[in-house]
Structures are given as C-alpha cells and as structure tokens.
C-alpha cells in the first residue's frame, strides 16, 4: 500500500538531513505504528507522504504508483483536531467532501450523517466544536479524515493531548473502527505502550536522521484489551523497544 524507496529530505537551512535514504513498506490493511523519540522526524515522514514536503531524493509509492500527480490517496489526521470554530461539527466533517466536489448536497449530508454515527457523535452534528469534549473532538477529526475516502490513513499522535483515561478509551475505539473498515493505518506515537496496543507491527526510528526503521511484529492477536498489554510477550517487546529508543537519545 505504501512504499518508501530510498527517500531523503533536508529542511532548507539545516546542516543535516532529517530523513536519509529511508525505505520501508506497509501492506494494505495493516495497522503500523511509527515510534521514535520526539523530534526525530516522524512527522516529517507524514508530511512527505501528504506532499506538504517534497523529498530531495527517492520515491514514495502509494498503491504501487508514485504519489506525484496522485490526489486523495491519503487521509491525514494531525496532532490537534483543527476543527474550524466557525463551522458546526457536521460542517467540519464534510470539509473533505466539499473540497473534492462532484457530490450533491444530499449525498454529502448522507455521508456526513453516516460518518457521525460511525464515530458515535449522532445528534452532535449541529453543535459547535467548542461544545465537544477532547475525546469527542478527536472522534470528529477522525470522521473528517475518513471522509477523505482514502484507503491510507495517517494519524499523527492524535491522542497525545487527551487525558489518560480518555486516551485508553480512544485507543480501543480506534481499533474497533479499524477492524470494521480495515483501512491501512500508519500511526505516529512516542508512546511505546500505545504502539504495542494498537498495531500489528511497530516501526522504530533508529535515531535521527531517520534512515532505517526497525520492524517489530507485535505478538498479540486482535481484539485486544488493556489486559493484553500485561502478557509476557507484550512486556518483552515493550522492554526491547524502550531499550532501543533509550540508546538513541543523546
């Protein structure tokens, strides 16, 4: 579904590249977490996939084709929900449909209503985003991301600003969504436990610049609960990942 082939990128004015000869592959329908210490360039990888940044070398493929000239191939969900305060919840969720165009008002309304139901915000569509709790806002942002209609979802630490209990609930909720829709998810986090809980495979950044990602299959089946994290194989992976990330910290 997603292929990085020897991709490099350097911010103008920086002495060293942020991404250096990076190659990795994500299969269709996979849930992969990308972990690494803060500031190692994880978000840069996402920005490259969305074409907010242009790689200085290498190729990025989505669905086997280069992303150059492709449109609507990925849904990006940033760290903060970025709901527009002047739009109601449903108007926010509808944004990707409006921009893509080609649909009648009724079709957009139907798709929006369905997305609201799916994320459990039925009846909240006419409210202002400011009336929603943190978890609800993230669910609304997720609904907006899914309405891009893309098979590839890029989630950039979407739960990092939430309180602990909400975060736990949101993780379970997200897995539930994924198991239903089976989209390809690439999820950035610096929380090792979150990565193990969510993903089928963890990609760990081996230091900065990101040049190689170590791949760790998660030895847990789905569905998962908070208790799954207490299993010996999960704990072993957690220790392994933490030890690895620690080594990388300056």
């Amino acid at each position, binding site marked *: 579904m997603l292929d990085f082939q020897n991709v490099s990128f350097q911010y103008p004015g920086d002495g060293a590249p942020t991404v250096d000869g990076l190659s990795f592959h994500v299969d269709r329908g996979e849930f992969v977490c990308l972990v690494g210490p803060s500031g190692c360039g994880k978000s840069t990888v996402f920005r490259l996939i969305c074409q*907010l940044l242009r790689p200085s070398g290498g190729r990025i493929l989505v669905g086997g084709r280069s992303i150059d000239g492709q449109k609507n191939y990925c849904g*990006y969900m*940033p760290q*903060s929900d*970025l709901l527009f305060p002047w*739009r109601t919840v449903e108007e926010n969720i509808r*944004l990707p449909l409006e*921009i893509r165009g080609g649909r009648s008002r009724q079709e957009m309304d139907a798709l929006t209503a369905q997305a609201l139901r799916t994320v459990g915000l039925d009846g909240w569509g006419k409210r202002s985003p400011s009336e929603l709790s943190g978890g609800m806002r993230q669910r609304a942002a997720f609904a907006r991301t899914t309405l891009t209609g893309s098979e590839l979802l890029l989630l950039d630490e979407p739960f990092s600003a939430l309180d602990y209990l909400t975060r736990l609930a949101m993780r379970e909720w997200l897995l539930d969504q994924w198991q239903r829709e089976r989209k390809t998810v690439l999820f950035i986090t610096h929380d090792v436990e979150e990565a193990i809980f969510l993903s089928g495979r963890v990609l760990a950044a081996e230091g900065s610049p990101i040049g190689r990602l170590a791949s760790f299959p998660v030895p847990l089946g789905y569905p998962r609960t908070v208790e799954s994290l207490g299993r010996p194989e999960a704990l072993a992976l957690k220790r392994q990942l933490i030890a690895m990330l620690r080594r990388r910290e300056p």
Partner: protein
Amino acid sequence: MKPNTKANLPAAILLFALLMLWQAGAMGIGAAYILPSPVQVLRRLWELRGPLFTAHLPATMEVVFIGLAISVALGVGLAVLMDASPVAEKALYPLIVASQTIPTTALAPLFVLWFGYGIWSKVLVTVLMTFFPVAITVFDGFRSVRTEMEELLVTFGAGRREIFCKLKLPAVLPYFFSAMKMAIPLSVIGAAIGEWLGAQSGLGYFSRRMMTQLDGAGVFAPILLLSAAAMLLVAVTAAVERRVVTWRNK
C-alpha cells in the same frame, strides 16, 4: 441585558460626575463663549435641531459612508494582495505604515485646493485616516491563520481559492469587525476635519461657523451630534458582529 447594565454602571457614574464637574466649572466661569455648560449645549442642540438634523448631519454622514466604503475596499484589497503575494507585502507594508506619519490634517487644505469645496476633498481626508487600520488589522487577521489548518486543507486537495473561501475569509472576520470599530470613529473625525477646512455644509463646517460667531454652545452641539453618530454606528457594527461572529471567545 441586566449584567450589561451592571457592568456599565461605574462608567455611567464617572460620566455623570464629570458632567457635573463641567457644569459647575462652566457656571463658575460664567462665560458661555469660553466654556458653555452641558445644559447650555443641550439647549443649543435643541434650538438648532432644524439645520443640524436636516442639512448638516446628512452631509457629514454622506462623507462618512462614502469614505468608509472606499477605505474598506482599499484596506481589504491591500490586505488580500499582501497576503497573496510576499512581494506585494514587502513593497506595500512599509509604505502603508510610513503613510501614517503624514499629518493628514496639515495636508487637508491642499485637498481643498485640488478638489474644491465639494464632497471629495472631505472623502479623501476620511479615506487617508481610515484605510490604514482596516488594511493593517485585516492583514494581521490573514497572518493569524494557522498554518496547520491551511496544510490540512491542502491534504484534502484544496487550492488557493478554496483555502481563501473556507479558511481565510471566516478566520479574518473577527479582525474585520475590530477594524470597522476602529475605522468608524476615525472616519467621523476625518469627515469633520475635512469640513472644518472648507465646506458649505456638514457638522464640522457648522461647528466652525459657530466659532466665528463666538457661540460656544453652538460649537459643542454639532460635536455632540458627531460623537453620538459615531457611537451609534459602532454599536450597530458590534451588534452585527455578534450575529455573524458567533464563535469568538469560544
């Protein structure tokens, strides 16, 4: 309404005390051509109501409205241009700021020379005084738009026009209303100054004529009317703002 009344109480009390002080001072001096008392001013306003309300207030308001309309068009236009093009920003911004060091009041007699005693010399003074806060405040509004929101729209496939309509325009509205609330009193002052320097009608002209007749209360009466008109216009703008910008302070 009630909490509002309560909030305004200290200001009302202070205003009343100042007016009392003024009244006492004026009565002490006892020379209305130097310092008329508030009661004398009100009485004169009532006596002069005919020419003031039917001839001079409409003449001034005409200048105010034409001047404001041109200022808003010019100010918003410049802001949009500076937002769209960094070159335009680099070229225009310093000039716009520098234009404010020109003492418009001192130049105004020149405008009378150029445009005569008709309406356009006054409109020019008004425009020169009001386009600046509009241009700068609206431009600040454009700059306040969060880059992440713009990027999010880009990932949805939005072009410049969609980013402008769906993000920048609504985001700039609160700034626009702030600009209007600054520009309205300035436009009234500008119109009055223009009329002071040369006109055949208008409240500024009337005030000056009363001065040549040593009619102190007659000088104040049109000024009182000007202030009231400015306050009323600002209040109307604020009411419209409350209807339109429902998301402010959320």
